[in-house]
């Protein structure tokens, strides 16, 4: 019996998210277990950036309980599972921060800003700066100092490898706003790691 369950988990591991959801909807409970295993670290890493390492496991747990409650209603035509999951995670974090009064809701939901093409070229980064970035501790410190909206975009873009469109869907922001945030976030990061180079 246990061997059968183990075998079915192994077989499910190679399935895409949408296939797993379909299987879960058809009564295969192990499919949800695979989804949880697949995304726990992603949600943990994302949550930790906003609520700290002490609260992050609780947030992850709450997110997956919400997923379990709503997975049968998930519509893959509207968005990908990953985007949907991050929307849930973001809302859970916002609720948590609001309850704890750690951050105001407005900080998460800034007014739309126009994309400014006049900003300096973000593609140039000196090798000295790149070396600094390779120190993950330094990068995490820099991220912590960043405004929330920039931090979110950087994490979703570089760590979660989402497209700007997916990030827009996750944050509930237009594409240009996301691009603008990304542009500014990279510039800010650049200024922080190599202030002399750009002054």
């Amino acid at each position, binding site marked *: 019996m246990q061997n059968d369950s183990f075998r079915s988990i192994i077989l499910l591991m190679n399935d895409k998210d949408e296939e797993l959801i379909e299987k879960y909807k058809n*009564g295969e*409970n192990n499919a*949800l*277990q695979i989804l*949880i*295993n697949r995304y*726990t*670290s992603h949600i*943990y*890493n994302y949550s*930790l950036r906003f609520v700290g*390492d002490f609260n*992050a*496991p609780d947030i*992850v*747990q709450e997110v*997956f*309980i919400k997923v*379990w409650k709503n997975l049968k209603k998930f519509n893959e035509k509207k968005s990908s599972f990953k985007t949907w999951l991050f929307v849930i995670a973001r809302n859970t974090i916002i609720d948590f921060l609001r309850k704890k009064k750690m951050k105001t809701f407005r900080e998460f939901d800034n007014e739309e800003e126009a994309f400014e093409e006049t900003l300096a070229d*973000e*593609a*140039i*980064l000196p090798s000295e700066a*790149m070396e600094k*970035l*390779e120190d*993950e501790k330094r*990068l*995490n410190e820099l*991220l912590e100092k960043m405004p929330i909206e920039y931090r979110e975009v*950087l*994490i979703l873009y*570089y*760590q979660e*490898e989402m497209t700007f469109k997916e990030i827009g869907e996750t944050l509930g922001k237009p594409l240009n706003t996301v691009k603008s945030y990304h542009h500014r976030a*990279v510039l800010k990061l650049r200024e922080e790691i190599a202030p002399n180079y750009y002054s």
Partner: protein
Amino acid sequence: MDSDLKKAFQKAVYYSESRLSENIWHLILAKENRRNKIRAWVYSITSVLSFAVLIPIGKNMFSKFSLNGFGEYISLLFSDSSIIVTYWKEFSLSLINSIPFVSFALSMTFLFVLFLSLRGAIIQFKNRLLIA
């Protein structure tokens, strides 16, 4: 630069403790078990209640059918169809009049509820067995 930044960011990922996903899964299983248990109870109680209500309502419906002569009209339908062809209008009106609509609708409603709740109860018991 994009790929360099990507590499740097990938190195800076925080990893959760290894048992976190397992703990979450066990918590969900426990919650699902509890939910199935509650649902199974609700469905079972609804089944018993709807069955208890269905008995007097059903009896009442059958007695009204026989009081209104529904059975005679039906037997006439099979015994002497030539009269029915001649007086089809009167026959169909009398047949309709002999149906006790209120108790018929009530019986059908409770029968429907009984089947639904039985089906629900069976599904919940099956789910509980699967999780266990």
